[in-house]
């Protein structure tokens, strides 16, 4: 469903990403790993429309999306998170989920004043969906708290819930386990797998936590210094000599 072909990204004289290719099929979890500064997040930024790639193609369901503005890409169903949690901190937990469904709502002021059946129907649906995901990520009790006051692990889960209420087809998670304790990482692990199994979402994952990556990935792409180094199943990657060398240095 997603195909990245020969992607490159140049910042002035620096070739941050050079010839990276990647493909993601339906209901698949694909990880991008690599040492710090390898260009993983740059690949993400190109995919989500933050950067206009200098070369290569990105096809989402057969449609070229490279260089498209970020909101258009997200409307196609590719939604991402960031390394740092970016919630609307001054809004309540449930508001964060409602505002993410903004474009599905009827925002006509007159319809709002008259409370037309269509308006109510959509309002009810969006609340139901928000409630469903709050329950799903275990934040129902905190629905009316300000998002900024949640614990870090809860903020991470809320962020994923906020992506999911937009009903994406492909979820891009940038280091979702960063800063989580082992128990929280385990929860996250189960959550991501369930997104794939129960909600038919494909996931692209950037992560440093190898136990998580090896556990849940269907395939792994390794990038080193902007170039593709290896790709394959977790088992193949574990035994790949180049990968070991890149991570541990030359013996």
């Amino acid at each position: 469903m997603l195909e990245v072909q020969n992607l490159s990204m140049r910042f002035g004289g620096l070739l941050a990403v050079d010839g990276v290719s990647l493909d993601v099929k339906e209901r698949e979890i694909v990880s991008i790993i690599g040492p710090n500064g390898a260009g993983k997040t740059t690949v993400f930024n190109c995919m989500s429309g933050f950067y206009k790639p200098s070369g290569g193609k990105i096809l989402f369901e057969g449609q070229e999306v490279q260089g498209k503005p970020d909101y258009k890409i997200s409307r196609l169903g590719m939604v991402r998170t960031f390394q740092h949690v970016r919630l609307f901190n001054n809004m309540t937990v449930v508001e964060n989920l409602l505002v993410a469904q903004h474009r599905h709502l009827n925002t006509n002021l007159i319809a709002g004043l008259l409370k037309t059946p269509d308006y109510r129907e959509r309002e009810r649906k969006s609340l139901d969906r928000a409630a469903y995901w709050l329950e799903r990520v275990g934040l129902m009790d905190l629905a009316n708290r300000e998002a900024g006051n949640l614990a870090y692990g809860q903020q991470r889960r809320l962020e994923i819930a906020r992506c999911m209420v937009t009903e994406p087809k492909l979820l891009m998670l940038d280091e979702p386990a960063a800063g989580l304790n082992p128990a929280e990482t385990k929860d996250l692990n189960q959550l991501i797998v369930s997104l794939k199994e129960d909600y038919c979402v494909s996931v692209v994952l950037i992560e440093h936590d190898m136990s998580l990556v090896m556990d849940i990935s269907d395939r792994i792409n390794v990038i080193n210094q902007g170039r593709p180094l290896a790709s394959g199943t977790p088992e193949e990657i574990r035994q790949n000599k180049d990968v070991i060398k890149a991570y541990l240095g030359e013996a």
Partner: protein
Amino acid sequence: MQDLLYFFQQLINGLTIGSAYALIAIGYTMVYGIIGMINFAHGEIYMIGAYTALIAITGLATLGIAWLPVILIVALICAMIVSSTMGWAVERVAYRPVRGRHRLIPLISAIGMSIFLQNYVHLAQGSRNIGFPALIDGGFQFGSADSFQMSLSYMQITIFITTLICMTLLSLFISRSRTGRACRAVSQDIGMANLLGIDTNRIISATFVIGAALAAVAGLLLGMYYGSIDPLFGFIAGLKAFTAAVLGGIGSIPGAMLGGLILGVSESMTSGYLSGEYKDVVSFGLLILILLFKPTGLLGKPEVEKI
């Protein structure tokens, strides 16, 4: 007793003018809250609102309509529509093309827009003062006739009540409506809001439209209160309202309300107890003092730099 009445008189005058400042200040603070720029043309939007209201009132008088509520409501609606359209157009023409550039560029564009609108009204309506019919006269008198009498005019009551209604509606809109919710999201993190599929351009336009509509309300009210308008009508009021917004903490809507009231009261107290000449000295002095001790304003958020 006399002194007390005198004090209350100043307080009433101050709260009247202050609530009108607050209405204008909302426009500054909402725009800053969302895109981090100062809309210097906002004072002109307010002035155009006053002119439109006057034209509507004159037109209705020519038609022979004399029932006051109709005149006021029609004038208000006309002023709000024209000002909102102006606010929307100014953003579309002068700010959107330069958004995201260096901070100074939209600022200069705003100053240019302000000069343009001011001169346009000079040309179209003439530079002289034009009388604004009071429409609402009379009021309550307190105190004995042979000494100081405190007066509370119906006009002042109208200003209070209208401002109160506008502020309540605005607060409800921001806290309850979907568009209000999206406004809050955009003001916190415009990039993320964009990614979640919120049409941020539309939200920004909405902010300009709402701010302009409130400024138009203030234009009608203060036009009637002062009794005359001219093309520079928006300049001083805009400056005062901007001060009020900064005083209360720019970006914060309750801050703009509070800032307006504080500024209005401090001005009228200075006029009443010192001299009218000193009122600007005191109000800007107050601004400096507050910014010295609370750089983000009274209700401003602690973060200074907006990303």
